[in-house]
């Protein structure tokens, strides 16, 4: 299976502060990869480097087989990015937002129309299409953001806390939609703070202070550390690390 994302010793420093510290991992095509870590671990920073928004300090990486330094523009054609912060135009309607992103990706008018129809059907957005984006309830806004990031059918989708602040029913439905995308072959690179969501992932990595401290299949990891569930595993790993750091 060819790799959708490869990262080798990727590092980002902001002045003296190292936000991402020599992380390495690979994500296979069609995989659902959970990129976990506490607040401030460096997840968003790593994703921003992969999407070409931030220049790495050192290390290498490829996305969709393209080098993150040299082939920035090619990467942009094959990825979708749903940022942690809602970043669609609040004063435009849902429909206008989707139409705008479709045009920016230079899709044909007919294609945009068909995909908006199809997506709003699948995501249950139909009745909200002509409302201003900022007036949508949070859950619908997240669905809209998802729709906008997949309108151009990206091969790899980066989702930075796509379900932050959303209720459990919405989250369940959202993950069903993500799974449908994965079934169609989209690679998903997802960050989340919800461990029940992490269990849906094929593989996860756990980040702490800029480093990846554990990586693997969720159930393998639970067995390895003999924890009842991912939540306990996560808490234990992070607090162990913090204690070690305090002892040193």
């Amino acid at each position: 299976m060819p790799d959708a994302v490869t990262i080798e010793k990727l590092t980002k420093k902001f002045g003296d502060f190292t936000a991402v510290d020599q992380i390495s991992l690979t994500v296979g095509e069609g995989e659902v990869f959970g990129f976990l870590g506490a607040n401030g671990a460096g997840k968003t920073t790593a994703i921003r480097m992969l999407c070409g928004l931030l220049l790495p300090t050192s290390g290498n990486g490829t996305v969709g087989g393209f080098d993150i330094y040299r082939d920035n523009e090619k990467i942009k054609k094959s990825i979708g990015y749903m940022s942690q912060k809602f970043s669609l135009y609040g004063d435009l309607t849902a429909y206008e937002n989707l139409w705008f992103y479709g045009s920016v990706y230079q899709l044909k008018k007919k294609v945009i129309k068909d995909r908006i129809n199809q997506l709003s059907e699948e995501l249950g957005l139909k009745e909200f299409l002509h409302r201003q984006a900022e007036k949508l309830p949070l859950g619908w806004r997240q669905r809209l953001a998802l729709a906008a990031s997949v309108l151009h059918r990206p091969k790899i989708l980066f989702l930075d806390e796509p379900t932050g602040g959303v209720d459990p029913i919405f989250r369940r439905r959202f993950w069903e939609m993500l799974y449908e995308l994965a079934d169609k072959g989209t690679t998903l690179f997802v960050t989340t703070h919800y461990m029940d969501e992490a269990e849906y992932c094929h593989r996860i990595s756990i980040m702490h202070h800029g480093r990846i401290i554990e990586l693997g299949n969720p159930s393998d990891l639970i067995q390895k550390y003999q924890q009842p569930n991912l939540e306990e595993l996560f808490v234990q790993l992070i607090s162990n690390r913090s204690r070690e750091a305090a002892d040193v």
Partner: protein
Amino acid sequence: MLQTILALMKKEFYQVIRDRNMLGLIFLMPMIQLLVLGYAINTDVKKIQTAVYDFDRSSLSREYIKAKTAGDYFIISSDNPPVLDAERGFKENRYSAALIIPNDFSEKFIEKKPVDVGLLLDGSNANSASITSGYAEMIAMQFNRRQLDIPEPIVMRQQMLFNPESESVYFMVPGIVAVLITMITAILTSMAIVREREIGTLEQLMVTPITVPALIAGKTIPFAILGFLEMSIALLFGVLWFGIPFAGSWTLLYGLTFIYLFTTLGVGLFISTISKTQQQAMFYAWFFSIFAILTSGFFSPIANMPEMVQHLTYLNPLRYYMIIVRGIMMKGASVDALYPEIIAMVIFGIIIFTSSWLRYSKRVS
């Protein structure tokens, strides 16, 4: 590319239309500026409130006073202080001139002896004081001539070209048009980009395959169009409301405005690369506008400025555009008359726009 630019433009227009503050800024600003500046900044000196102290009280002195007030220039103020206390009247702004006729006025005049007539002026507005004294002198000379039949060796016949009634509004309105277009395009462009950075949509755009030229075109063309709209509103208002004549070619004015817009849009782009917040962008854009307006010759002629400031004005693109707008509107100037300004403007446009553009490309990566 074209599709992307059109999508950006459409989006920008939707946003402007839905933003009440923005709409107000765009449509009320030209009206208010025209009304306020067109009326309030009246550099014409007319209807000078004058206190008259006639100590002679002869028929001749009354005739002299009548001659003084015959035109539109001097108006006799009715409530003069009982004593000669002009300073107070000036301070209270009740009048700005005082005419003093001595008690031997008619006696000496008839004997053809020199007679002194006093004129006290409020010099706090130096410009209008000197114009007032000019009027007074002219009226005194006419009075002499008429009463004494003095032969006149030199007769000066003046005629003003281009603005025969010396209406300051004819001069102000073209200036306001130039100022408006500068402010609107620089402020709106810089704020629109910074707003996208603030709310995070710029980042979202940066992960799309959008190219820098398309982004810049999509972000500047809508404001260029708004600038033209603004200018047309101001011009129509000037022509219909103030009745200002338009001597030159509309096509030339719009064509040269197009060139000028590269500078102001370039400045807007530049500001957007150095501002983190919309307030910051607004502040820089105002600062630029004020500097540009003050050194453009909009309020006072550049020739009256200190020499160092005069040199500085050559760095101000609005200086050239101001000459162009006034030249075309008031004098019907054509390209041959304006080519030094046009060349300066083209050079400025290219330098400012491309350098901001290059800064932009760097920041994207």
